[in-house]
């Protein structure tokens, strides 16, 4: 699904990632952990094609080098990134935005646009599944949403767009227990043998609901340790210093 080789990433003129390698196969869930400021979010931004990052090296997605593609081209190929702090956009109606995004992606794949009734049916089903208040449909995108609503809105967008590679940047931060369960339910609903995930998190609690196949620790601009789900538990118990020195 995704092969990263010798990746260097700069953000705001600062080299944040150097010579990073990562290989993710279809159906796998990878978790990236690390201290604040070690480049976890930058890595996801580089994969998603953010305008903020400057990259060198190789990122191959489904057999195609995607470094030359911009963010919307990567999104239409099935890469979805949920943001740590989703931006508020006053005046952009949430339903209009979701329908436009979905139909733009369908158009780029040569598919017919989804009709309004079909779209609304899908949207309402997914909102009910995630236990999202219907009132958010009338509001501008993320405007006045609580922290939990913003994260659920990201998961709703993800479910509507049905991506193949899902990048989740601290999707669990600021969530209460019920909201965390809803978000995890949404993630697991999209977990198929054809879908891969990269999750950035600081805590093990999301991983109790979304079981990872691999856990990586990012430090000093590259991945310094790899393991299975037990590595996240070990980190929570011992902290980075002990785990990295062992």
């Amino acid at each position, binding site marked *: 699904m995704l092969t990263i080789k010798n990746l260097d990433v700069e953000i705001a003129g600062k080299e944040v990632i150097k010579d990073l390698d990562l290989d993710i196969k279809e159906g796998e869930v990878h978790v990236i952990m690390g201290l604040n400021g070690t480049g976890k979010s930058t890595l996801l931004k580089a994969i*998603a*094609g*953010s*305008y*903020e990052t400057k990259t060198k090296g190789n990122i191959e997605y489904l057999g195609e080098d995607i470094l030359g593609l*911009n*963010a*919307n081209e990567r*999104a*239409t190929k099935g890469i*979805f*990134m949920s*943001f740590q702090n*989703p*931006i508020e*956009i*006053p*005046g*952009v*109606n949430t339903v*209009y*935005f979701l329908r*436009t*995004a979905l139909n*733009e*992606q369908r158009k*780029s794949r040569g598919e017919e646009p989804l009709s309004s009734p079909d779209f609304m049916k899908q949207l309402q089903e997914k909102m009910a599944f995630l236990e999202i208040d219907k009132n958010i449909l009338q509001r*501008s995108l993320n405007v006045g949403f609580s922290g939990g609503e913003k994260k659920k809105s990201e998961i709703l*967008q993800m479910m509507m*767009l049905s991506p193949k590679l899902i990048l989740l940047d601290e999707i669990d931060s600021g969530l209460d227990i019920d909201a965390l369960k809803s978000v995890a339910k949404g993630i697991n609903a999209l977990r198929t043998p054809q879908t891969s995930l990269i999750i950035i998190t600081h805590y093990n609690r999301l991983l109790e609901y979304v079981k990872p196949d691999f856990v990586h620790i990012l430090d000093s601009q590259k991945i310094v340790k790899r393991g299975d789900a037990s590595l996240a538990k070990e980190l929570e118990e011992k902290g980075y210093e002990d785990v990295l020195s062992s």
Partner: protein
Amino acid sequence: MKMSYLLSELLLNASNMDHIPNKKEEKWRFSPIKDYLERSYNKPTFSSPEVSITPEQEHWVSLQDGKVVDSYLPPGVHVKHGLSSLELNFFEDIDLYLYHHYTQQSFVDSSLNIIIQEGVKVSIYHDYSGGKEGFILHSSHIKLEPKGCLSQTQNQTLCAEAVFIFETKVHAGKSSSFKNFSLHKEGEYLHNIFHTDLHYQSEAEITSLLLSQNTQKYIFSCDVEHLASRSKSQILSKQVVRDKSVCVFDANTKISKDTKATQAKQSSHALLLDDSAQVHAKPHLEIYSDDLSASHGCTVGELDQEAIAYLRSRGLSEQKAKEILISAFIHDTLESMENITHKERVMDLLGGYDE
């Protein structure tokens, strides 16, 4: 045979202009009118109508170069008209469509008087077309008797080469209400001037949406005078400025001595889409009373790169993301428009940005 005259000569004899404007006057400070003085224009010949209309609305008036060419009005609207003047006196509630067509290269000096009788509610949609290489002076006098209501929507999307100076004087009587929404989208130079006098418990809501491009110059100038207590005014202008175009917001709200419980609000927000685009904003309050609530302010900015990036991360092209954000920016100018038909027409003109 059409006779051509220099604009400088035509302006000296125009009924809607008592002198040739110059940049030393505050009102004409940003006006490029001097550039047009040596251009020649024709006086209108009032020939047969160039365009016939089939309005959706039941009641309508069609004008060419300011002269009425056809109309369908109920008995409750009294009409007087001359060569380039029209007076409409409303004695009953009505939703009216006014179609203003201008012929090519003409100098038009037209006037429109509107009188809204006591307690009458009138809604008017003004559609302006034509005016290619023309120079149009249009003066409008509006008198609202007590409890009269006028809600106007003006689609000032003339030909790209048109010059249009529009002056509206409003006298809002006791407990009356005046609402005006104007959209400028085409035209080489457009100057929209409002003077509004507000009496006891009257209200004025004046909204201007300027969408300029190329080398267009759009000026929105609005004076409101609160002459009595409990009056309310709101001036809102939004400008989307592209290429080398220029937009000007010049507003002055005066709150007279001895008025009480006055509410006044002014705001101007501009979106600059190119480095060479310009905005000049001058929100101004002149206050002689101490029992009031008033605010004024302006913002000038560009499209939010983070918002563009967010929309693109969901698969929207850069162009589509920008269109959506521009639509979001202008969204609230349409919010207070109560007439759904007017709102839908404006949304159509905006190319479905505001779905």
